[in-house]
């Protein structure tokens, strides 16, 4: 008798667990603040999160720099590839904000040129020192600059995680380099479908 009662209860709890917020990537719903920034977009316009919450789109937030030859384009290409594998109606409800941590070399123009290689949903952002510090402190994004070589070239070490927010700007999940594409695809699909109600 007890067994008969327990099994359905167990199944109910199990299913509830599955439909909850346990992402296949890392949950940040309790550990990160909502989407909040003031930056300059790749069209040279000063924008805040409100400008990107009006169309009901989920947001991926990634920090990097255009002179990054390997990790940044690899990450963005991966996001582009997974995004392309989504149904068109889901894809239309996603934007990827790529924020430069290299304000000395990156401009709205260079960001626009760079993001054009990945797709229309990729939007470059720059900020002055204080705007950048503000947004990177908020999301605990670290970055540091190596010593420039004799030609003035330097590399930037930076947090490589991608943060995901729902269409209202609530924090959802964080993608690490080690997470498989299939986990990202599953979480993105859920995140966008959740936003559509």
């Amino acid at each position: 008798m007890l067994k008969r009662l327990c099994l359905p209860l167990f199944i109910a709890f199990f299913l509830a667990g599955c439909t909850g917020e346990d992402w296949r990537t890392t949950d940040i719903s309790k550990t990160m603040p909502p989407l909040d920034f003031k930056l300059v977009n790749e069209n040279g316009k000063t924008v805040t999160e409100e400008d990107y919450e009006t169309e009901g789109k989920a947001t991926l937030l990634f920090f990097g720099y255009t002179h990054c030859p390997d990790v940044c384009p690899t990450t963005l290409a991966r996001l582009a590839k997974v995004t392309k594998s989504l149904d068109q109606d889901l894809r239309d409800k996603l934007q990827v904000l790529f924020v430069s941590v290299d304000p000395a070399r990156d401009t709205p123009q260079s960001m626009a040129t760079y993001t054009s290689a990945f797709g229309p949903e990729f939007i470059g952002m720059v900020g002055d020192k204080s705007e950048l510090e503000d947004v990177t402190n908020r999301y605990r994004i670290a970055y540091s600059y190596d010593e420039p070589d004799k030609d003035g070239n330097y590399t930037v070490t930076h947090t490589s995680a991608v943060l995901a927010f729902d269409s209202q700007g609530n924090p959802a999940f964080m993608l690490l380099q080690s997470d498989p594409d299939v986990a990202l695809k599953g979480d993105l699909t859920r995140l966008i479908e959740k936003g559509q109600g």
Partner: protein
Amino acid sequence: MRNLLSSLVLGISVFVFSSGLAFADGKIEVTDARLRLLPGDVPAAGYFKLHNGTDEAIKLVGAHTGAYKKVMMHMSMEKDGMAEMHAVPEIDVAPGEDFEFAPSGYHLMFMKRSALLQYGDKVTVMLKVEGQKNVPVNFKVVSPADM
């Protein structure tokens, strides 16, 4: 005019090395060589697989090409959630072993483009191996979306 000249030089290079990946002596084999080009004046990355078919260890010490002013061997690594990049002065490949330059790991970093490049072009890169003749390799220019 300069672009034309570059294309010409590139074209000739392609012609000369189009016999390609199988080297006459068949000793050091490079396959799947691609140069990931990004729009704008930013560095590109080169990836490939190298097989040391010789019976001696080889030491890869760098690369150069007419299409970029500077080429460096680099390695990306992930440490405590941070992406880092370091220059790598040399890479040893034991006899019979393979070594792969791949995204988020070892890569050639091409800096300061000096030729006009388009997706689908071929770029000849000379790999420098200590104590041996340079190894010419054709890199296919690809878009980040094609990798």
